[in-house]
């Protein structure tokens, strides 16, 4: 049977609930305004329908009071909704304390979802309920957009940079991941699932003892070997094998380049005096384009790693540098 319900998409996150409240309000007020204006127009069309070719009409070029009141009314209406929307948005994008971080890489045409323990799943995101989740996302090829309709959130994934998606699931269940940015042939097939588990189940799942339905879907064949290393361990490995250690220490000492100790999340002063927050994108840029932002007090001798590190490896290095904060 075809469903013709108007609102069949459940809400399963804090931002989803906020969206529903917001939308319901703006919808009702918008409808009143619309029906009011149009109703008057249609009423006029009937009431003042032409009776004869010689109807007399009055000459009313304007009415300042009516004009002022309508401009004022509309402005207030718009301002209220703007502020409301801005506050919800601000809340949605701001980093929270104690976020659970997961890496996402979009590629034609699936999602690679990478956990701190080094496990990687395709098209399956498993998260604990009632925790702030932060997805650090990028793309391997073209633009995609990571969209979870039940959470009412999305964010584009962009090759060569990181974007963030934040949400707080508040209902245990299974939800959908769509790609919302057109990306070619199988754009509409780039579908995944989000499993929201209770916090205990999630811990069990991390420990590999979870027995629920999921175990099937995330069976080992679906997992990256990752050499059994966590992201941080893999990052440390790269730190050695790519010879970062020859210029960067992790204990605070300065060699040719600044130390990684305490780097992530700090304010870095660049040549020229501008200050910049050392976040995921900054680290990525330091690797790809080291000349672009040179740290004050250092010479621009860092080699570029463009084309020498995969997105997964960059994620691992970022995790490693984060762990040294």
């Amino acid at each position, binding site marked *: 049977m075809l469903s013709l319900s108007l609102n069949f998409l459940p809400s399963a996150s804090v931002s989803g609930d906020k969206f529903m409240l917001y939308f319901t309000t703006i919808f009702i007020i918008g409808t009143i305004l619309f029906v009011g204006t149009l109703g008057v127009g249609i009423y006029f069309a009937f009431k003042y329908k032409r009776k004869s070719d010689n109807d007399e009409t009055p000459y*009313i070029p304007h009415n300042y009071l009516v004009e002022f009141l309508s*401009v004022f009314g*509309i402005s207030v209406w718009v301002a209220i909704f703007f502020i409301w929307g801005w506050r919800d948005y601000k809340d949605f994008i701001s980093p929270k304390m104690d976020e659970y971080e997961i890496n996402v890489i979009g590629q034609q045409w699936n999602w690679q979802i990478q956990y701190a323990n080094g496990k990687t799943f395709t098209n399956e995101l498993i998260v604990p309920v009632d925790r702030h989740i932060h997805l650090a996302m990028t793309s391997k090829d073209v633009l995609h957009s990571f*969209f979870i309709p039940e959470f009412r959130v999305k964010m584009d994934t962009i090759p060569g940079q990181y974007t963030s998606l934040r949400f707080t699931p508040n209902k245990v269940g299974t939800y959908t991941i769509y790609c919302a940015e*057109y990306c070619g042939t199988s754009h509409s097939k780039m579908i995944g699932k989000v499993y929201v588990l209770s916090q205990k189940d999630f811990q069990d799942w991390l420990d590999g003892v979870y027995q629920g339905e999921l175990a099937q879907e995330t069976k080992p064949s679906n997992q990256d070997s990752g050499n059994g290393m966590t992201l941080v361990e893999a990052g440390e490995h790269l730190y050695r094998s790519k010879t970062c250690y020859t210029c960067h220490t992790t204990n605070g000492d300065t060699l040719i380049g600044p130390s990684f100790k305490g780097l992530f999340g700090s304010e870095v002063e660049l040549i020229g005096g501008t200050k910049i927050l050392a976040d995921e994108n900054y680290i990525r840029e330091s690797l790809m384009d080291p000349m672009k932002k040179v740290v004050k007090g250092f010479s621009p001798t860092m080699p570029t790693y463009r084309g020498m590190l995969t997105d997964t490896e960059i994620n691992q290095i970022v995790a490693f540098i984060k762990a040294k904060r």
Partner: protein
Amino acid sequence: MGHAANINFYEAGNKGIMSWLITLDHKRIGLMYFITTMMSLCIGGIFALLVRLELMFPGQQFFDPNTYNRLFTLHGAVMVFWFIIPAIPGALGNFFLPLMIGAKDVAFPRLNLLSYYLLLLGMAINLYGILHGPGADTGWTFYTPYSIKTGAAVVSMVVGVFFMGFASILTGLNFIVTVHTLRCPGLTWFRLPLFVWAIYSTSILQVLATPVIGITLILLTLERTLGIGFFDPKLGGDPVLFQHFFWFYSHPAVYIMILPAMGIISEVIPTMSQKTIFGYRAIAYSSLGLGLVSFLVWGHHMFTSGQSELANFVFSLLTMATAVPSAIKMFNWVATMYKGSISLATPMLYAIGFLFTFGIGGITGIMLGVLSADMHFHDTYFVVAHFHYVMMGGAAIALFSGIFYWFPKMLGRMYNEFLGKLSFWFFIVGFNVTFLAQFVAGLNGMPRRYHDYDSVYAGWNLISTVGSWGIALGILMIIINVVYSSFKGPKAPANPWKGKTLEWAAESPPVLENFEKTPTVTSGPYDYGLKA
């Protein structure tokens, strides 16, 4: 020929096809634009029907994903670049702007003809890519890096659009100069008909914004052919930069489409109500105001592109601010009808239809401008429905209103009233069924540009497809009406609607240089009714 001045422009001067193809008469050029853009509407419409057919049921129906992707790309590109942007300024603007200001022609008739041929050239280049190449599958937005990587014929699409952009710039330039220099004696700025104000504002946008898309598309072409690396991150470029450039033009382009439409409505409603327009200056200034603000809101297409918080704040605020001038216009049109003598002939029906659909387009636009809500709505069918309400339900409906309103003047014959009204009802019902259903699908999370969709959306998609047939029938009736009445309609009087703007002072159809004697204006454009 002798007294050419007394003979209408169809019969005056040379005859035969060449006399049309190399004409410098703004009326003939306007009619050529009219025929060309109506054909574009049909082509774009066929693509739309095919897209809807594929989406009638979940799963693959008629086209594989690659074909489907080409269909929706062509639908968008043809409707935007071949139809809506050139239609109102090119066809109705060309025909009526000089008439309405009491001029003999536009300021640069040769440039005018050149614009038309640039449009044709652009279309021909597009067609070459569609028919001889693999077609384009990027969406009409050509987002990088997909448009750099895809194997489809992006270059022919983009180069074609580049030439059409030039056509648009030159038309705008021509109209600006025309309005400044060729107004007849007594026609001060505040006696200009609002359609002229609207075309004037549009022309400014065309001249200022279109070069940006031209340059952007050249950069894209260079990137594709020479691998220069403006937008491809692999080469050190920034893919999001393309979006900034693209929308820096394409948002003002929305106003290139909608401002002339508002101009038509501002003509039709006062005349058909025999009432002076309510708030003339408010409407004139809000056209200019909307035009200016439209340059500063492009980022609202990019709320989820990772642009900064501050950018999102400013773009959202300015976007929502545009609700104010738009709402002013809505109120003014409705207020104009108050105590009027309202004729519900076809042009007026379409104008009231415009108030209805444009109203929905506007209010859903505010919903989309809200940052938090756009995190959900962006790139879903909610957006698709919204811009169809503004483009089709705004620009196209107003065009239809204008076609019927000015038909007697252009062709010298009356259209068929019954068929006109019937076309309206088919169109308006079909339109609302099609796109209200898409609002529901979008609200519930159906992403756009999807070849296939989850079965939960099946009901609304089926309804939407059935609705699209209503639109098709409505448009078909308009075309039949226009073609039939051009030859067989009863002869039209010079002023069938008792209009007071200058085009109604000319013959139907007008003589070769519009007026036998240059008119002099002594009052405002909408002096209907009894002054107290």
